[in-house]
């Protein structure tokens, strides 16, 4: 087992994973430096979500190593990984996944309350983050009464309220219109930069990837230098009679 480079907060080497036999990751290596925003870019099905899940300890790769601050994530027990996720990581998915029976501020305060923070302190931190993400008006509303963009902002506030070392954002703007998506993304990156939170941002949109400091391209589960999808190939395929 080789120790990771010192300046990388997260480091992965030769990750292999498959979903019921279908290959998802084939030897992906990656290093993430502290405080940077790294975009993981690639078309649908290229393994972005699987990579993020492996790096965040939600999946254990079939082969390969994942190190977080010199601690081997791939050899941790599920309980240790759960604790790591709760204490050090944040996650924003394509769907907000809010708890439907709680209000927006309660949803935001939930991770803090789960860590044992007092209700008063959790509420004040949650309201503070909702204000910063332009969602202060809807703090007392429940998810069903919010617009999709507002829900996604609440989800981002919920991920940032614990001030995680590392934030995993898996297509956070996928269900939003471009204007909403751009605004949500701007607030996310601004908040991350001002609090020196490292962000791993999976996206298939080159415009979104342009907001990051660096981009790692994935194609069919492998790291590549850049992705060029040739549209004409599809046209040729259409000429075949099946």
């Amino acid at each position, binding site marked *: 087992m080789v120790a990771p480079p010192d300046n990388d907060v997260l480091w992965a080497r030769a990750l292999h994973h498959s979903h019921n036999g279908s290959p998802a990751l084939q030897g992906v290596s990656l290093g993430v430096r502290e405080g940077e925003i790294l975009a993981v870019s690639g078309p649908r099905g290229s393994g972005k979500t699987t990579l993020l899940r492996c790096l965040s300890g939600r999946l254990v790769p079939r082969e390969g190593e994942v190190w977080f601050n010199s601690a081997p994530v791939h050899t941790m027990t599920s309980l240790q990984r759960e604790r790591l996720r709760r204490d050090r990581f944040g996650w924003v998915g394509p*769907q907000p996944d*809010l708890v439907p*029976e709680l209000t927006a501020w309660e949803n935001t305060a939930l991770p803090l309350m*789960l860590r044992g923070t007092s209700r008063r302190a959790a509420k004040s931190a949650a309201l503070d983050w909702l204000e910063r993400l332009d969602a202060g008006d809807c703090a007392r509303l429940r998810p*069903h009464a919010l617009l999709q963009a507002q829900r996604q902002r609440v989800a981002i506030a919920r991920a940032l309220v614990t001030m995680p070392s590392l934030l995993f954002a898996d297509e956070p703007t996928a269900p939003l219109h471009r204007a909403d998506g751009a605004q949500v993304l701007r607030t996310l990156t601004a908040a991350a930069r001002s609090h020196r939170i490292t962000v791993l941002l999976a996206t298939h949109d080159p415009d979104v990837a342009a907001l990051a400091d660096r981009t790692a391209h994935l194609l069919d589960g492998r790291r590549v230098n850049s992705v060029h999808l040739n549209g004409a190939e599809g046209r040729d395929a259409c000429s075949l009679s099946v």
Partner: protein
Amino acid sequence: MLALRLARGAHPLVLLRRLLVAAASAGVGFLLLCTLGYAVGHPGESQAALTRLAWCVLPLAATVHFAVAVARTDPATRPRPGLSAIGLGPARLAAVAAASTAVSCTLGSMVALLVFLHLRGDLTGLPFDGASAELLGAGRPLPLAAALTLLAIVPVVASTTAALTLRPRRKAVLDDDPGTAEPAPAAPPGGLPWGVALVALGVAVETYASRGGTGGAAALPLPGGLGGGPVGVLAGWALTAVGLAVAGPGLTHLTGRLLQAFRPGVTRLLAGRALMDEARRIGRPLGVACAVASATIGATTLYGPGGAQPFGPLTGLGAALVMTCTTATLLTAALESRQTRVTTKDALLRLGASASMLRMAVGVRALALLAVFAPLTWAVAELAALPLR
């Protein structure tokens, strides 16, 4: 055919639930056939036969309630985007659910017919041949049309109710996309005042009616004993039971509201809010179970072992059916509630909530419900039995 094919690939627990529906249906079918046997054997006592038939409504209602609860939790009848895309939408799935329910109940009815004929002595070659020949009116031909009509009651009523309950509402059809649609929670149930009023009215009617009776157990014979007890007392019990069932959702909602009040921690917050949201789903079967429990406590107080009128076998079967079905319905509703909360549970686990914390929230919820409903059931049972002592 699709219903049968889906049933073949179902999980053993799902099949067990359907088997329980079939068993309950068999019990009700048997009771109905026994009523028919009694009517055939005692042509002069049509009033008594009708009373027996009327008492069969209770197990029938409990069985239909259970069958609908099972149909609602059946994974094969849950809308799935893949099936919806090929035209098997919510409407067709409701039809599949109705067909599955009809199949289970018909199976039960067939078993009931075989057991009835066997115990009557019409089918021979097995142990207990004609064991209850006297009770079931053996020796007289059974009217085929009447028997089939009675046996068809459970499948027809249960499948129709399942189809009506699961029929797609307009909103559900429009909100077909589970990804972006956040279902609005149902409005808080408002049946609590009505329920309390009905319970009070029931107790009052019962007290008033029992004053004119002879007092004691003789005034209220169960179907095993038969005879004309004061109708007012029965009406009072029925009103009390309906009141409890109506008050169930409102009371559950109130319990949840109290549970999450006064600066709750995360466990109390999650437990209380979940209870408030699930008030309709959990509260109704809980109210019915409480009504049955309070009636059972009351009846046991009055007609307990050593009393003047011990339970007959058919009364015992009916009571056991009602109790089992209401308990099973309550458990099935709890299962349905758990199924609908799977995504929320996953989201909470992703946030770092520990599984033990989630289990504790479930435990707190159950304890809160027990703390509210158990004394209530006992109090209503005591109040209902008080005038008859």
